[in-house]
Every structure is written in structure tokens, then in C-alpha cells.
């Protein structure tokens, strides 16, 4: 304190203090205020960079103007949330013509994804990447319980009661949700990727979307109090285990029991 007080008398001391104060205030501001949706913060440079990335990686299927071709749908009006979900989970770019896009290792940096999102968002109004406050899980038990109820009604029929995934028609499937980020779950509900229907904010509010993601996080991270889960697949894996482990162990014991001692 003494050293600092001494230096304050230095001619530049006032400047230093001002700079420090600005840094602290600015840092706190940037931490405490929710980041505005990335589309809104996008600069013309971002949009230009995003366009270049788009032309190099996406235009082949989605068309040079993102107007859509036989190989891929139009991206006008899908918004930055779609881009962030599809590219951010590695589903795009598509690796092969399949009934459904797999999630794969992500091929672009967060910055590049944001730039592409900015470009697509500039083409027409669409759902934006959720604000930062909805990109996190909550651990409020009441909200987790609410999320559980909403998940059961709106999502479990495709994604299974704990988000283990499930089958759709003709080789399509609803993916496993257990390690998916709150942001991507939010964006998926908002945009309805691939086979998934849309759950807009009038149907499931942003808070409720966060509740759902938080329930999934809860179900995926809490240990099962009963022990091994066998994949959370229910009676089929339990039945297999009863035969493969239980009956086999008992038959093993019976063979030992019936064998003559040496």
C-alpha cells in the first residue's frame, strides 16, 4: 500500500490509476453483462470472413447464394443458431450422403463458426445463438424437476427418458443427448435440425429450454444409485445381463458343484 501511495504522486500516477480502474470496471462489465447474441455483435468483417468460409465449405450443397440446391436446403432465414448447432456439433459439413448427419469432430474454430453464423444471419432474419445466460446448466432442483417433466412430455419419446437416444424410421435416429452442451440443446429445440420438430419460444420458453438441458445434465452426470446402468436401455439390456451374467454364473457354480473333487 505504501509503495502504491508513493507512486500516486508520480506525474503519471493518475493515468495509471485511471487505466487500472477502467480495466477493472470494463472487465467486470464484460463478465457481468450477458454477451449480446453473436449475430448482433457481428461486424462487416465477420460477415465477410463468414462468407468466404461459406463459399469454400458449404456453397457446394447449399448454393453460392445459400439459396439451396438439390443436395442441400436453403440457409436463408435459418439464423445463426442453426449454423452454430450444425457446424458446432460437427454435423456439417456432411461427410457423405446419409439418411442423417452424424455428429463428428468439429472442423472449425469457435470464431469461424461465429463468422459463418454472422454471414447466414445477414441473409435473412432467423433464430440467433442463445444469450450466454441460457448457455449454462442450472442446478436449481425445482427447475431440474420442471425440466424433467417437460423433457418427458416433449422429448423422451424420441430421445429416451434419460436422453440415451432412440430409433426413427428408415435408418434415422434421435441422438444421444447425455454429453451435449446446454447451448446446443437450446439451439436444437429452437431450430429443429433434420428430423427434429421445432420447439419455439412460444411453446417452450427460453427458461424452460434451459430447464430441460439442466435435467439432462443432471441425469447424465449423477451416478446411478443402483450401480452400473447397462447403457440406460431398460429391460432389454437387463434381460441380456440376467442371462449372460446371472444364468451363466449359476450354471458355472452348478458345474463346479457336480464335478468330482480331485
Amino acid at each position, binding site marked *: 500500500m505504501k509503495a502504491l501511495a508513493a507512486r500516486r504522486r508520480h506525474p503519471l500516477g493518475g493515468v495509471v490509476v485511471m487505466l487500472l480502474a477502467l480495466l477493472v470496471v470494463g472487465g467486470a462489465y464484460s463478465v457481468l453483462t450477458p454477451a449480446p447474441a453473436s449475430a448482433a455483435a457481428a461486424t462487416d468483417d465477420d460477415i465477410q470472413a463468414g462468407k468466404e468460409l461459406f463459399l469454400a465449405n458449404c456453397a457446394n450443397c447449399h448454393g453460392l447464394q445459400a439459396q439451396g440446391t438439390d443436395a442441400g436446403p436453403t440457409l436463408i432465414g435459418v439464423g445463426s443458431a442453426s449454423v452454430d448447432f450444425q457446424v458446432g456439433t460437427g454435423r456439417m459439413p456432411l461427410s457423405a450422403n446419409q*439418411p442423417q448427419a452424424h455428429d463428428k469432430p468439429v472442423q472449425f474454430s469457435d470464431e469461424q463458426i461465429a463468422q459463418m453464423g454472422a454471414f447466414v444471419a445477414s441473409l435473412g432474419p432467423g433464430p440467433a445463438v442463445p444469450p450466454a445466460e441460457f448457455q449454462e446448466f442450472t442446478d436449481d*432442483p*425445482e427447475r*431440474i*424437476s*420442471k*425440466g*424433467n*417433466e417437460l423433457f*418427458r*412430455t416433449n422429448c*423422451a*419419446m*424420441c*430421445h*429416451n*427418458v*434419460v436422453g*440415451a*437416444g*432412440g*430409433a*426413427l*424410421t*428408415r*435408418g434415422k*435416429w*434421435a441422438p444421444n443427448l447425455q454429453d451435449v452442451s446446454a447451448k446446443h440443446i437450446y439451439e436444437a429445440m429452437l431450430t429443429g435440425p433434420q428430423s427434429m420438430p421445432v420447439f419455439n419460444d412460444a411453446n417452450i420458453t427460453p427458461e424452460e429450454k434451459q430447464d430441460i438441458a439442466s*435435467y439432462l445434465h*443432471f*441425469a447424465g452426470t449423477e451416478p*446411478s*444409485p*443402483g*450401480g*452400473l*446402468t*447397462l447403457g*440406460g*436401455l*431398460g*429391460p*432389454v439390456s*437387463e*434381460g*441380456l*445381463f*440376467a*442371462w449372460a*451374467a*446371472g*444364468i451363466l*454364473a*449359476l*450354471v458355472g*457354480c*452348478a*458345474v463346479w*458343484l*457336480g464335478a468330482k473333487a480331485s
Partner: protein
Amino acid sequence: MSSILTDKRTATLAGYVDDRVGASKIVKTFARKIFPDHWSFMLGEVCLYTFVVLLISGTFLTFWYTPSMALTTYEGSYPALVGQTVSEAYATTLHISFDIRGGLLIRQIHHWAALLFVAAILAHMARIFVTGAFRKPRELNWVVGCVLAILALAAGFTGYSLPDDLLSGNGLRIISGVIQAIPVVGTYMAFFIFGGEFPGEVIIPRLFIMHVMLIPAALLAMIGIHLGMLVMHKHMQFPGPGRTNNNVVGYPVLPVYAAKAGGFFFIVFGVVVLMAATVTINPIWNYGPYDPSPIGAGTQPDWYILFVDGALRLMPGWLGPVPTEFSTFGYVWSLNILLPGAVVPGIMIMGLFAYPWIEQWLTGDTREHHLLDRPRNKPTRTGLGVAALVFYVVMALAATNDLVATHFHISINDMTYVLRTLFFVGPPIAFWVTKRICLGLQRRDRELALHGRESGRIVRTADGEYFEVHEPLDVYERWNLVQHEDEVVVPLPQGRATTLDKLRARLSAFFFEDRIAPVTPAELEAAHAHGGHGEVESGHDVPAVGATGHGTGSSHGH
């Protein structure tokens, strides 16, 4: 030993019991009864012991469980359901799982024991079937066993539904739909069972009383009859040296069998508890309370009901342009539900009950049997058994089609088409393959009995000829290979044959088709007389004995 019996107090006590219940006669009758030993004979004991485990663990559960569908707000220890409206049955099951020390363990013991109970019953039945243990005089005990199997399924299903969770509730929904599809009385039956419209407010209490009283009482009674008959008939035994149709070779109840069988109870119980300690089963907190609107992907019943669910999945609602549900005079025939939900299981159960008499009829064999068949020595029966098992497994597999589709990345539609095909062609293929395997094993037995075991030692004769030395089997080993009897096809009766006679003769010929007769002493003699190394040309010197086939009625061509 003598010290215990000469002890005065023991003697007094023993005398007291004997005076009142005739204990000495009971001890004399049972304590030294002989039971044969084989691992597969323990499968029945697994059934009995898991049932005991079920009684013990189930009683524990009833002290906390409330069989009520009254709605309540959940306020227990599982956070993700707090504040939601659930039934008391569901809430108390959660209470057992999360708020009673060891409660979750006992629940898991009960459910694992239930899965093992039915699994052991199926394995036990398969053993009885392929070894021919259902033959006279045990046909009635086979029937009792079939009744036990059905009761076990009923016990399992009623128990599965009791937690009133989303998974089992949708299972009940399916059952109610199947009941409604029954012609004429279906709707009334559904309304009587559920106390009105589905789901109503009475089905859980009704299932509860079935599950904890009626079905276990029936099971106990039938187990009593089953074991009573077992003691009366004495246990069957595998053929072997010294074992005949007129004796039982094994160990006495006291001490060996009592120690082994008693010990095995603890082994079974212990394995169940260890499974329950380490592996989650039926995590109802994940499924949530029952509500007619939601459902989870991957909705399946416990494994033993999978076959009915799978049959329901396989049956198409439309055969091209032809619907499988139609109405006549304003009444609906839901064949798309009835055929897989009631007719197929019904036929399977009837076939199961009737099999001992069917086989008896077409073999004409009404003798008493106390020696088991080696499965290979009855290729047709073994083939039928495997075919039935494949039929069952194909249907059960169909009920897992959504899980298989996602885990092996195949289309659920394609998988259903494949399984629809396998439903028809799987069992015949399984029959044919199994029968060929059995016949192959029988031929190998013949070779072994005739020529002994290959020693791997090559010897050169004075003439420069090479042959492999075969070591002859000793009489005990050989007996295992030659002990079975050759079978005779039931011929057409003299004079006019009825259609039934013809059918019987045809089925009998089918049953014994391709049979291979056991080696006779004369054949062995001939094989040996054929020079010291006849083995080299083995096959030539056996004039296709027994491998005649097509039921000529006289396969004894030697």
C-alpha cells in the same frame, strides 16, 4: 454321531417329535434317498431358490409399498421429481429406493431374482425337453411345470406394473389394447379388469393382490405338486455305466445332497444379491410417473414378455392392399392384434402342454422311462426344441428392433422385414441344422465305438502301408456311446387304415427319419475282424448301418 443320539436330552426330544408326527418313518423314507448329480439338474433348483428369494425380498418390499393410484405430490429425496404429481404406488416405490437404507438393494434383489426365476424356468424346460424327461411316467409333471411357467410369467408381469411408472404403465396400456381386441367380450373384459376406462384407479391394487397373494399361493401349491411328483418318480438320470432304467445312481440326501443342494441355495441367493449390489435394474426414477401422454423411446417389457411384444411389432396392419383389421356387421375383427397377441402365444402354450402326448402317439412308446436321452440320440426332437426356441427368440428380438437399429446402425424398417421373414423360415432352418448336427454327432459316436480313438501314432506295416493306430475305448466309455435303443417307426395298421392312421405313420416316419442305430456287438466284432488297421478304410466296412431313413419300418439291417 453316536454321541448325539445317545445324549439323553436329544433322545427325549427326538422321541417327542416321533410320537407326534412319526418323524422316524419320515427320516427313514427320505434321509437316504438317492439323487443323481449333473449340472443341468440344478437348473430346477435355481427356479426354486430364486422363488424363495422372491418371497423373502418381496415381503420386505410390502412393508413400505402402498398399492394405491391416489395422486399425491412427490416430496421425497429424488430431486428431479420433487413437486410433480405422482401416484402413491410410485411415490412409495421411490421412498423404498431413496429413503430406506438397503431398500434399493432389496428392490434390485427382487427384480433380478424375478428375471433369473423366469430365465431358469426356460432353461430348465429346455433341459427337460431335449433329454426327454417328460416321457412316461412324468407327462403330468411336465404339465404342472408348464402351469408353473405361465404362473411365473403372470407373477412377473403383475409385479412389473406395480411401481406405476411410465414404462410399465405403457405396458399396461398395450395389454388393455390387446384385451379390447378380443371379439365379443373384449371391451367388457377390459372395463371389468380396469374398473372402467383405462387406466382407471383400481388396476394397481388389483394387480397387487394378484401379485402378492393369488399367484404366489398358486405357485407354491404347484411347486408342492411338482416336487411331490419328483420324489415319487425319483429323479431321472443320464445313461452311463451302472445306470439303468430300474435304478438311481447318485448320492444320498444325508449328508451329501443336503449339503450340496442347501449350499446351492446360498450360492443362488448370493449371486442375486451380488448382482443387485452392483447393477441397476428398473430405475423407475428415470421413467417418471405414468401418464397416458408421454412415452420413452425404447419401451419394452421385461425379457420374458418380449416375445408377445415382438409378435405385435412383426404383424403388419396391411398385407399390401388387404387390411388385417376389418369389420363385419359393425363389429371389429382386429386380427393385427389378435393373431400376435393371443393366437400365437396360445398355440405355443398348447403345443407345449401337448407335446408329451404328441410324441408318445407318433413313437408308439408307452414304456416307462427313467434314463434320459442324450439330445443327439433324438435328432428330430432336439431339432424341434431348437426350432421352437428360435421361433421364440426371433419374436423376442423383434421387440428389441429399435435398440438394435440404433446400436448397429440399421434401418428399423429393414430389420422388421428381415425378422418377418425369419419368423417363418428361421424355425425350419434351425430344425434342419440342429438335426444334421445331431446326426453328425451320432455318426462320430459310431466311429468312436467301432474304431476307438485316434492316437495320432502312424505305423508302417511290413508291406509299406501306413495307418494310424486307434486306441480302443474301454467298456465304460463305449457304453456311453452304444447304450441307447434303436427306434422303430409306427407302421400302418393291417387292413384299412384311417386318415388318422396314415397321418400317424407319416409323422412317425418323419420323427425317425435318418436315424442312426447304435453299434451292436456284432458290428464291433466285424470291425475288429477286418484286420488290425481296418480303421484306415473305416466307412467302407460299415454297410451304412441304420442310416437308412425314410421310415421303412425295419431299420435293423444287421
